[in-house]
């Protein structure tokens, strides 16, 4: 499952990447809504957020882009990754309605833990958005099951205690923890944070239902940023095909 910063380097490129990913066999894509203070993100994604924001990207413009992607018959399942700061400012109910109305299928709010999610959960359900919740390596066992019960769409298992970013390898205890978790839930479990190459994707997907790759993709977009759009899209798309080899 690829992650893209919506509007990085611009919204037209994001839309072109979605089309390209779909043609290559991707089924779900995460779209990061740029935020000024993303405390769970490492330098790669943070820099892409900062750049998108200074180019004038906003939730409203992202919703507009998703709407036209859907009108063009775009079929990827889209999950918005968005800070609660943004959702709260817009008003929880109206933000969820706007995201669903634009064509999002799910929402991940990384700074909204279980204790604070009670108000949002029914509103997301009513809007038709799956509220995807996260489990961290530091989450105690009983709490993992509780979060699994509340998560909709899939469960986002954070592979490492830390921020997003490419890592050479993932801790084996996280892989084991996902295998254990899957014996307790029918909700799909995806692993994210630190997954950066095909080998890790293959390894992760031996136990998980999906692997989320973010920083490794954003870093390739950054490298190709000055190239013409179709070249950037092809380069990043080729990387996605590489990542898909172990699981297709």
């Amino acid at each position, binding site marked *: 499952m690829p992650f893209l910063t919506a509007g990085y380097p611009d919204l037209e490129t994001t839309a072109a990447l979605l089309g390209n990913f779909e043609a290559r066999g991707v089924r779900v894509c995460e779209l990061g809504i740029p*935020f*000024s*203070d993303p*405390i*769970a*993100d*490492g330098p790669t994604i*943070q820099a892409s957020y*900062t750049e998108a*924001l200074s180019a004038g990207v*906003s*939730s*409203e413009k992202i919703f507009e882009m998703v709407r036209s992607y859907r009108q063009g018959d775009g079929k990827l399942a889209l999950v918005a990754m968005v*800070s*609660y*700061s*943004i*959702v*709260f*400012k*817009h008003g929880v109910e109206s933000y969820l309605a706007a995201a669903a109305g634009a064509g999002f299928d799910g929402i991940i709010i*990384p*700074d*909204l*833990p*279980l*204790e*604070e999610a009670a108000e949002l959960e029914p509103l997301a359900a009513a809007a038709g958005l799956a509220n995807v*919740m*996260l*489990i*961290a*390596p*530091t*989450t*105690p066992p009983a*709490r993992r099951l509780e*979060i699994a019960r509340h998560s909709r769409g899939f469960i986002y298992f*954070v592979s*490492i*205690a*830390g*921020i997003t970013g490419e890592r050479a390898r993932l801790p084996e205890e996280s892989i084991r923890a996902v295998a254990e978790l899957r014996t307790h839930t029918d909700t799909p479990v995806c692993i994210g944070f630190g997954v950066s190459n095909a080998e890790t994707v293959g390894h992760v997907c031996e136990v998980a239902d999906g692997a989320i790759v973010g920083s490794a993709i954003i870093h390739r977009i950054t490298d190709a940023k000055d190239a013409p759009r179709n070249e950037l899209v092809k380069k990043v798309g080729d990387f996605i095909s590489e990542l898909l080899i172990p699981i297709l």
Partner: protein
Amino acid sequence: MSENEKVGYFGPYGGQFVPETLMAALAQLDHEYHAAMADESFLAEFDRCLREIAGRPSEMYFARRLTEQACGAKIYLKREDMNHTGAHKINNTLGQALLTLRMGKKRVIAETGAGQHGVATATAAAVFGLDCEVYMGTEDIRRQALNVFRMELLGARVIPVTTGQRTLKDACNEAMRDWMGSVEHTHYILGSVVGPAPFPEMVREFQCCIGRESREQMMDAEGRLPDVIVACIGGGSNAAGIFAPMIDEAVEMVGVEAGGRSMGLGDHAASLVAGQPGVLHGARSYVLQDSDGQTAPVHSVSAGLDYPGVGPEHAYWKDTGRVRYTTCSDDEALDAVVALSRAEGIIPALESAHAVAEAMKIAPKMKPEQIILVNLSGRGDKDCNEIAEILKRRKK
């Protein structure tokens, strides 16, 4: 459950809006904090640290010449500037360092703006033999060079932050990112009454020695409580510390935010006066942000007030009308630095000068037998270079 009973909330404000990775650490901290506050031996040890390390109690001082100049109410100063390390920040860092030991953690991290919290953290870390790293924006490193040197001398590592506006908010982001990856062996000594629960309540409690002492000292000096208490507000820890112990008394309370250059968005740091309810750094409170929820740029001459959020309990006190919140401009604060230096021989921190300026403003409207207590939260040595430069520019 009503909003007021929700754990970690002050009315609708507060909460724990942080990534799941930090939730276990917050639960551990909450548990240890409450156990410690019910443990006589912890409280005795904290008291000993406040006495022997911070040098408490701090004096309460009648500012006779300043009172004469203001031509009105009597002005008293609570001398937090006389504490070891030069500000109220040491009260909190000693308390949290003791908790760090209790949790068996060996490393502490902190964010700092003016550098006072960084110095106070580095000091506590040195006292207890903890590893210490302090995140500080490069803009603040520039304007607070003396404090950077002090932290390093105390054995801490200062990590420059180059994201965003390169000030306090950005340092706070980086400290939280560090904590995401180090949470199992590191405690984050947050410097104000902000952040996720239990920080706002815990930092307030560690700062309440200011208000408890003031209360006694004022009873000794005047036989009654003051009419007005004035304190400056960045995150709001010195204000919470002096307000909270007298919050149920008939005492008027005024919090002074940074009015900066103007009241246009981006020119000040007045979250309570000009902001709206929002979520920042793990808590719901008043925040300066744009209509999309992005944090707005802020400005203050004082690095310690240069922050787009504020403690959730202050948000609650604002909504309930218990505390009046106002602003003081950069220029008024600078004038107050000069006025207090000349009238009393006390060079205040730029932060604290905001409270002094407000006291000078309201004193003439009050009767001579009335009393204003100003929390002089820190001393101005750290600001001397910055003040000298600004005064030089002003002359031109």
